[in-house]
């Protein structure tokens, strides 16, 4: 599964994307975020506070409680600020 990072999430992690293979008990985006957070100090800094994070599953905005089974691509990012 591919995980994409944007904005300050990307900056803190130091990478725009990574390929991951989470274990079966990591079943939602929220669980995926907790699982990713221990990978590095950068991951921890980026992913510590779920309240400041939003996500997309296969290019579609979804709540963090969304299941990840079958997803090709999960994106994790701060609240958007376009327009």
């Amino acid at each position: 599964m591919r995980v994409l990072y944007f904005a300050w999430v990307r900056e803190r992690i130091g990478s725009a994307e990574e390929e991951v293979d989470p274990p079966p008990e990591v079943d939602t985006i929220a669980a995926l975020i907790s699982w990713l957070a221990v990978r590095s100090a950068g991951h921890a800094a980026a992913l510590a506070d779920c309240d400041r994070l939003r996500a997309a599953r296969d290019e579609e905005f979804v709540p963090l409680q969304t299941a990840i089974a079958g997803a090709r691509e999960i994106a994790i990012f701060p609240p958007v600020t376009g327009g």
Partner: protein
Amino acid sequence: MIRVVVTSAPIVLADELAMAEQSGALATFTGMVRADDGVTELMLEHYPGATERALEALARVAFQRWSLSGATIVHRVGSMVPGDRIVFVATSAAHRAAALEACAFLIDRLKTDAPFWKRERLGDRHRWVEPRKSDDASAAQWQL
């Protein structure tokens, strides 16, 4: 006709207007980079693919809800300086209320529904723009 463009090229209003459907009533909105607090550069990051998808979905909603004859969204990405145009929205309908409302809807909703992130440069430091509560409130008033 629906037209959605995400581009790093400057937005030329005359060109956009020439392409916008014009039937009865045409409303447009243009957002520009402000030099607030000494901002010298604005960097717009986005999520390629998802951005276009979100904007097209939004344009389709507006198109049906207000029976539009045309909806255009052009959003610039990459590096910009104060005065540069960030976003252009145009809506066209038989009557003015539909065009004006749909235009306000699109600009309000694209601020919360499309994956763009703004980073401001102030001299030699930079900061990510925080979302504004008022943007959420403006977007929420348009019940779907």
